[in-house]
């Protein structure tokens, strides 16, 4: 197993080199750079040249690429043009806020989706199944900013149950438990919307997985043995139905850190998604490339983790 992991990790190196070349090449091909994107009407050609020289943008692309890679190998992603501080600290400042809501959403949506999926499979074509399917498809097809604004209107403005946006109450100076309570209150609406959106697809996965499993012979055998229905479903069927979901879980890893561009904006949540989007608009290459590479590494790791977990969970699969 450890040999397998090491081999997979080594395989990641050429993949990452490939990714770095592609994203760098794309960034070079996009029209405009940070100097033109800042659209300063007083910018003279001389000043623009000075700035390009300071940022190293005047060097040939190949040289820029190697400088970037060399710095990256030493853990230095460069300084963000916009934020005027190291890219790593920019990411560190914002990414945990995104992680917080993404993580809670992940737990909630998986738990709910697992239960709902299993039940609607068990009672396939029942009234419950039909209602659940309807709701799930409804939620899946609604645009996130739309329900986002709708819940703000009803739960924050009309009912005044939750704050309209942000992560903390402005001007409230509290610490410890009170602070956690304050943040939790601000999290309710964004987490609820994100959960509602992601639950749809997941429920379908669980339902399909479960439907496939409960038609297998061994389930019939278990029932024939006279086992209780609950034991059959949760002990025998559920574990097997979970297997395909493990792949999905691995792929969720970059999503945990990637931020939600649109919902962060709707709820004024101080996450990395908005910052990343702004770096694209402003052609803030160090931040844009740095964060893209960060996500690429997470995606590859996520794949590896799901493969490994698959091996652990399903003894029929042997990793070599």
């Amino acid at each position, binding site marked *: 197993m450890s040999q397998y992991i090491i081999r997979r990790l080594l395989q990641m190196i050429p993949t990452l080199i490939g990714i770095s070349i592609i994203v760098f090449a794309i960034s070079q091909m996009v029209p405009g750079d940070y100097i033109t994107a800042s659209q300063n*009407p007083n910018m003279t050609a001389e000043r623009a040249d*000075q700035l390009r020289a*300071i940022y190293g943008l005047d060097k040939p692309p190949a040289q820029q690429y190697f400088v970037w890679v060399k710095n990256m190998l030493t853990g230095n992603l460069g300084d963000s043009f*916009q934020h005027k501080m190291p890219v790593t600290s920019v990411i560190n400042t914002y990414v945990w806020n995104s992680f917080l809501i993404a993580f809670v959403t992940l737990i909630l949506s998986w738990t709910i989706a697992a239960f709902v999926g299993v039940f609607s499979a068990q009672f396939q074509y029942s009234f419950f199944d039909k209602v659940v399917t309807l709701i799930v498809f409804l939620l899946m097809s609604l645009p996130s900013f*739309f329900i986002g604004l709708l819940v703000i209107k009803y739960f*924050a403005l009309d009912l005044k149950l939750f704050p309209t946006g*942000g992560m*903390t109450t402005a*001007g409230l100076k509290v610490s410890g438990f009170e602070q956690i309570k304050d943040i939790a209150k601000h999290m309710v609406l964004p987490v609820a919307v994100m959960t509602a959106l992601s639950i749809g697809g997941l429920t379908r996965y669980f339902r399909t997985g479960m439907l496939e499993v409960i038609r297998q012979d061994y389930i019939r055998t278990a029932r024939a043995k006279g086992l209780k229905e609950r034991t059959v479903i949760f002990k025998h069927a559920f574990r097997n139905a979970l297997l395909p979901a493990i792949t999905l879980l691995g792929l969720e890893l970059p999503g945990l850190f990637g931020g939600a561009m649109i919902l962060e904006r709707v709820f004024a949540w101080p996450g990395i998604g908005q910052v990343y989007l702004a770096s694209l608009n402003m052609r803030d290459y160090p931040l844009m490339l740095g964060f893209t590479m960060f996500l690429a590494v997470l995606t590859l790791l996520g794949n590896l983790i799901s493969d490994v977990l698959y091996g652990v969970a399903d003894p029929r699969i042997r990793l070599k």
Partner: protein
Amino acid sequence: MKKRLSLMLVTLMAFGSILAACGGEEAAPADESAVTTPAETGEEATEETPAENAEESGSESAIGLTEATDMSMNPAPALARTDSMIIGTVAPQGVFNPLFHQTAYDFAIDDIIFPSLIKVKEDGTYENDMADKIDISDDNLTYTFHIRDDANFSDGTPVTANDYLFAAKVLMDASYDGQSDPLSWNIVGANEYNEGTSADISGIKVIDDKTVEVTVSDYDAMTQINLGLIPPMSEAYYGANYKQGDVSSIKELNNKPMGAGPYKMTSYSAGQEVDMEANENYYGGAPKVKSLIFKVTTDLTSISTLQSGETDLDNVTVNEDNVEELQASGFLDVDILKNNGYGYVAMNNNNPLFTDVKVRQALTYGLNREEVVVAAYGPYAEVINIPQSDVSWAYTAENIDTYDYDPEKAKQLLEEAGWVEGADGIREKDGKKFEINFSATADNPVIEALIPIMTENYEELGIKLVTETLDFNAIMEKKDRGDYDMFFAAWGLTPDPDTTVYITDGAQNNSGYSNPKVDELYAQGKKELDLEKRKEIYAQAYQLINADAPEILMYQRTNMLAINGRLDGWDISPYKEYQHSLSQVEIAQ
């Protein structure tokens, strides 16, 4: 309810599409002096969202201040803040240093912490701020600034001439990567300091603690402003680890600013809020409201946070629904202010199609600009005829042709220019058909209003309009190559009318316009220091530009501020932004 929802949907779609457009169609920032240049970022481009319907056109009073009508509606959270105010803002980037900041949001906060020697007035001229006297030598090359005796930093240390020199050194440093172009100010010795051949800037002399003398090698009207806007930065605080050629130690303090302004920053949490406290040492008198908080909102939450009383002031996208909603709340003052900028349709003056002034005039007469502007912005924008804001001291309406929509006159001008109608109804000259290729950005509300009207109007003139949709940056590239017919963009306006947009080969001259008389007037205007004479010079320049019609000037739009009626004492105008009033604002009880 149903109607409300559909309106909401439209707003949402507009938002979604703007998000996709990203690039920011406003080609220039809204406010800057040479020192401080906040760039218009992608977020700010969302301000271009127009009114959804334009039925109520022509209501004259749409622009201006509407006072709160019913303060009893004020929600409890706002009333509970008896010694603090909360300002909603788009997230600042955390560059709280006036030498390095870039967005308008960092700029607003820096304005409060770091005053300069001079400050802008309502009409775009400047007055003394931290300096109580400025002496200018007869040859206009030497400027002596006398810093106020009572000017102290928030840590209690006095603001000295050395702190001014220090800020200038950072600006002239070879590694300085802010938005200013300090070497263009012609300070004697600046280049030597930049190149590292001298450890001092010979043109800046510290006479005594409170007096500094700056010598320039060449002057113009901007010199005094450029020099006066260098904000003194505490050398003791910022300069501890500074070495010539490396400004990184100064940038490390970006999130812990310390200046001499009315408020000092007590804490900053990125993307969430900025907490500030009154600076008791402020030379203009300690502010009346003790605590000031900037809370991050987005264009989607700004109205709801105002309504719930979570914020006291915020910028809100101007459109009829938003105005109505804010006014309906009863406790909000709604201030609609002219934006410092204008939208225009650029024509390639070097393209044979547009070299003839009569053709350019005809295209302006032949376009129903009023209809376009109303479709895009409702009553919240006005058609303009000179490239200047009507709140500026340089504005003139004398001898300005208003180019009212007149297709007959347009046709006549085209005939005079030799473009005659062909068999298919399209005008021709020397066997060439009059066909204009318009490069449009996707999802821009102005373009969505403009293209159908323009196509129809020009068809009536016998001109075929072909549109191609491109990314804004791609259009700018085409422009740089001179390979275009027409595109739509917008300029920001500085308080001073000096610009390179209309001078031959100017850095910002997008249209290739060239008129030696205009060049001469702009050069004169830049060199003249007397305001009355400058007014005359710019009026002449604007009259020439108006007659030459190098581009189709479209509109000046507006921005909207909503302020909780419990706060009094504001003095806000398009140039003098809300942050300049904060030290005098009071909470009405």
